[in-house]
């Protein structure tokens, strides 16, 4: 026992104090933050010096109109796309090749090609089928750029949403639907009451990303003569050659995306609060 007590006392070194003063990282960080602040101040100064009452009188209502058109495009496409996405997701998961192959091709096409090319294909391409569309009485629909844009965006987002939904549905543990079966529920009821609600919770975050992508993608509508926020911006710039049009557009888009992101984070936290590990008990 004596050898234990005679062992040299353990020297416990205190952890090294954090490096104080100006480390390289701190210098770089402050320099970059300084750069951002200078850029921000320059931007505000630019907006102040180029203030022009006439410019605001003329373009503010147009920007508001454009903003509303953007909201319309985004919300219509997302809702129509969501309606399309459920059968598409079910088709992707189906074992029947008659359902699986076409839905796979649809999803692959719309996810593998640029949105702007799809918009051109439908908006300009519809003209190639004018006679056929006329004869079935659909030409009025494809003649209008706004309809074409919503149609294309809806198909595009349907493909993305279908993949989100499929991933989320397959993420639900198999025991959940087995439990439903053992209770004698029908397959439809199991899907609607057990699988889908759990899948939608998992899908919440990717859905939020998809909405952001759609807001950003909707700027493409301006290229095919739709006067959404971006379209009004481009028109205002081509008339006034005033660069503040683009600055304002950037601010509006940024605020739109940031607000959505934060609201969505809150929403997700609220909807998943029952899944949080209980920290109050500890």
């Amino acid at each position, binding site marked *: 026992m004596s050898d234990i007590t005679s062992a040299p006392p353990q020297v416990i070194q205190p952890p090294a104090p954090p490096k104080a003063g100006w*480390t390289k*990282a*701190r210098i*770089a*960080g*402050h320099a*970059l*933050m300084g*750069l*951002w602040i200078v850029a921000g101040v320059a931007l505000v100064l630019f907006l102040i010096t180029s203030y022009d009452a006439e410019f605001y009188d003329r373009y503010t209502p147009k920007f508001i109109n454009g903003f509303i058109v953007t909201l319309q495009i985004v919300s219509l496409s997302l809702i129509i796309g969501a309606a399309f996405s459920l059968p598409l997701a079910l088709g992707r998961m189906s074992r029947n090749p008659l359902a699986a192959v076409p839905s796979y091709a649809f999803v*692959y*096409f719309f996810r*593998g*090609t*640029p*949105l*702007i*090319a*799809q918009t*051109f*294909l439908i908006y*300009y*391409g*519809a*003209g*190639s*089928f004018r006679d056929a569309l006329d004869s079935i009485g659909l030409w009025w629909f494809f003649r209008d750029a706004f309809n074409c844009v919503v149609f294309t965006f809806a198909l595009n987002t349907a493909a993305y949403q279908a993949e989100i939904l499929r991933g989320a549905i397959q993420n639900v543990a198999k025991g959940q639907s087995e439990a439903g079966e053992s209770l004698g529920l029908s397959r439809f009821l199991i899907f609607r009451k057990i699988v889908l609600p759990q899948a939608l919770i998992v899908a919440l975050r990717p859905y939020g990303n998809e909405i*952001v992508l759609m*807001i*950003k*993608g*909707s*700027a*493409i509508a*301006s*290229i095919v003569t739709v006067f959404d926020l*971006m379209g009004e*911006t*481009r028109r205002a*710039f081509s008339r006034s050659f005033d*660069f503040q049009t*683009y600055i304002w*557009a*950037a601010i509006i*888009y*940024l605020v739109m*995306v*940031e607000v959505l992101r934060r609201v969505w984070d809150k929403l997700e936290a609220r909807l998943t609060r029952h899944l949080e590990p209980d920290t109050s008990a500890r």
Partner: protein
Amino acid sequence: MDQVWTLVSFGDEGWGDEIARGTLLTVALALSTLPFGLLLGFFVALAKDSNEPSLKRAAEIFTTIFRGLPELLTLFIVFFGVQILLRQFAELFVENPTIEINSFFAGMVALGLVFSAYASEAFLSAFKGIPSGQYEGGFAVGLTRFQTMRLIILPQLIRLALPALSNLWLILLKDTALVSVIGLADILRQSGIAARVTKEAFLFFGIACLIYLVLAILSSIVLGGIERWAKRGEAAR
């Protein structure tokens, strides 16, 4: 049907060679954006991963801006904004300077900024996946910080970030289509010209879409190969 083949043939009557040149331009633009975007994204991720709050903040502002703006708007702001800034700068020295910014360069910068903002997130989550023991091990055998980063962290980082980066490459490839709007003769612009001249819009935009699909499929094959190569050191599980 013969008529269609004439339209897409190579030579004076067909548009095949024009579209092929556009394809080369699209690929060139995407490939030249990639290193710039990867490098910038890596440094932004490094800043976000640092313990210094000011550095973190600065990097987060960068990501917020370039992930939040529509790619098209970023492109216009870079294209027109840089032009205006350069002109104002040149006016200090000469009167009425004529400055035109190369649209390839503008496209590269705009797409690179967007790519790096997303890539930084991919790198950041990869950084989080590397335990601190890896750094400590490097320091313990006497490597410098730079050596530890290059020899120990980076190889693991690439493997962890690769799936997300592959996805970003496919997005970049699609985003290059936007540069047709600022006058760059890429796939979409060339097929747009062909569509206007021949009045066969559906045919030519359909071809453009198919070319993008083929590029995506080829990329997936190559990226799959790279991913297998990156994983070669991993034990089969």
